[in-house]
């Protein structure tokens, strides 16, 4: 039984904060270990972490049952972990080992588990068609089962996702759409990419809309509970619009975050070519050039006003604070999780060396 390890009961109406915290903290520790592997160069290409969105993933995934399906984006590691996939298999996959979850052939953007009906993709918006296809199969083969799609706010402008929402509402498919909105599509902000109101948009497609604070796992859990019950009961699909802060931005090493963390080290390399280009003869009017400069600066300044500086924007810290009433239990749990993830890392690395 998935999640049973932490005594999560899918029948409980009241939120079990301890169980949710355990899922979130375990995922955080896991992705911190992945960060170290990436920094050491043991992971070669991109790495997209879910740090900062653990409350969203935990609030939803903890309520899934066997037979439910997940369609995930390029940031699906935490959902795989929380669904019960072996952390050693995930680590080995990221290390590119033949005994990884996907034989070292998928990597973190293309994690797949047939037995969990969990499929991730690096194509933005592809979670929409995948989730409604899983939901369609559930209608025939697994009545009462649902499918969940996790995606970012950038995906909300992708045609195939909008088409999927229409089809989901039209066919009353048992699907839950979860938009993890961190306010950035890599380096693009919603003000320059998204028109209108997201709630109006999806309500217009016949999808039930819920606006949720993704820093508050209890709120996510309650909203997801309602939405999942509706889906299982054959009512119209829901979009949970959940706000969060990605603690590492789009991907590890993102230049905007490097600037925010080390402006003196990173800015000169960027400013030199920018200034030279700004001054080059031939091109736009001064007014146009200044408008260009303002755009570049606004992205940098928005990152410098970094919401990551405030621990209240970290959902794991938020639950931790709520659980401090029982410090001994918290400490015992933290220790247990740290030991588990450290052991998983050691197992994956040790066998990799062998």
């Amino acid at each position, binding site marked *: 039984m998935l999640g049973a390890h932490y005594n999560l009961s899918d029948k409980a109406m009241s939120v079990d904060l301890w169980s949710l915290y355990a899922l979130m903290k375990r995922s955080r520790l896991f992705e911190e270990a992945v960060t170290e592997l990436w920094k050491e160069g043991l992971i070669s290409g*991109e790495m997209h972490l879910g740090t900062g969105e653990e409350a969203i993933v935990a609030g939803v995934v903890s309520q899934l049952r066997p037979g439910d399906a997940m369609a995930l984006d390029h940031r699906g590691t935490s959902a795989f972990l929380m669904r019960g996939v072996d952390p050693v298999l995930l680590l080995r996959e990221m290390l590119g080992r033949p005994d990884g979850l996907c034989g070292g052939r998928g990597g973190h953007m*293309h994690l797949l588990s047939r037995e969990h009906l969990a499929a991730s993709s690096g194509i933005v918006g592809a979670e929409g068609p995948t989730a409604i296809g899983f939901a369609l199969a559930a209608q025939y083969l697994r009545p009462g089962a649902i499918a969940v799609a996790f995606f970012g706010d950038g995906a909300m*402008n992708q045609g195939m996702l909008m088409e999927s929402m229409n089809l989901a509402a039209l066919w009353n498919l048992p699907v839950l759409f979860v938009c993890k909105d961190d306010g950035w*599509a890599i380096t693009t902000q919603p003000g*320059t990419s998204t028109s209108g109101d997201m709630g109006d948009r999806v309500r217009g497609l016949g999808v039930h809309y819920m606006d949720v604070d993704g820093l508050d796992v209890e709120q996510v859990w309650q909203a997801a509970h309602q939405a999942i019950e509706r889906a299982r009961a054959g009512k119209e699909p829901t979009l949970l619009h959940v706000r969060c802060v990605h603690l590492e931005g789009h991907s590890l090493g993102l230049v905007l975050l490097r600037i925010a963390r080390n402006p003196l080290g990173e800015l000169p390399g960027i400013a030199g070519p920018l200034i030279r280009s700004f001054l080059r003869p031939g091109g*736009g009017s001064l007014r*146009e050039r200044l408008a260009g400069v303002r755009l570049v600066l606004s*992205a940098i300044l928005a990152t410098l006003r970094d919401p990551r500086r405030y621990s209240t924007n970290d959902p794991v810290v938020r639950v931790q604070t709520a659980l401090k009433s029982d410090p001994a239990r918290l400490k015992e749990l933290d220790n247990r999780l740290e030991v588990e993830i450290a052991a998983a890392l050691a197992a994956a690395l040790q066998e990799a060396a062998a």
Partner: protein
Amino acid sequence: MKTMYFTEAVDDALAQAMGDDSRIILLGEDVPMLRRNLLVRFGPKRVRGTPISESAFLGAGVAAAMAGLRPVVELYMVDFLGVAMDALLNHAAKLEAFSGGKWTAPVVVRAPCGGGYGDGGQHEQTLWGWLAHIPGLAVVVPSTPADAGGLMLAALEHDGPVVFLEHKLLSESYLEFLGSGGRRTVQYDVPAEGARGPVPNRWKALPLGKAVLRREGNDVALVSVGVGVHRALEAAEILGKEGISAAVLDLRTVSPLDKTALSEIVAQTGHLLVVDEDYEGFGLSGELAAVVMEAGIPVRYARACTQTTIPYARSMEDQTIPNVERIRTAVKRLLQPAMESFTGRDGV
């Protein structure tokens, strides 16, 4: 002589063209940040960011070209063209034929391509064979900064749609963004002469469909594009020390294809090895064999290509994408007496 990095050269040529022609605008995801140096010179009306809506903005780029603009539409990766293929397949490529030659869409689609840095098979494809398969699309794959700038100008001057593919291993900025990300702990096998090299003081358009012979040779012709050209050159260097004289032909554009240069070098050497980072089946490598056979040139033929979905693991990826050792082995087998190398494959 002035030298530039690969993407720097593309952007520099683009800037020159934008200064000369106010119809050129740039569109694409994160373009204000990726092309920030052009943004602060030409302003946000000419350098526009888009939502992640490939089918809309690529289709819009095609139609804007039909209506008089010269858009350069950027995709984050050529793989993502899958989302928006209709705009190229059924519209841009068909327009000239459907209109009886009276209407064209001079749009440039600029997209990074290629592997070698561990991003997995949905982010590292090359797809130039798939694209060049479609009549009406030009497909450009430069291998040096000088060619990249010159071919970008050619793409902008071309009267129809052009897909301009920028290999990520050659691109200083994409490799940093998608690979190293500020780390010093990762190594990529970057061909130095492709990543940085001499460029002209003022860009001139290079002709589309004109290959260049990178290395003379008499025993075998290695024919490739993009990073494959550099792998072939490295293999040719080693083969030279082993007594085999290998020519290296850089096609530079997959479509139009320089059949004359191909035929000449194959007629001269009698042996052809195609080095193609794209998929082996139904693609560039088979097309080159067909061209040579149609020309009636007697040849012994082999190919070193990507045969499967590119694995995420670097160790497996390095074996999947044609590498120097595979090229060397394939040449040796190709030059063996006829019956011993009957299969014509590079045998991996």
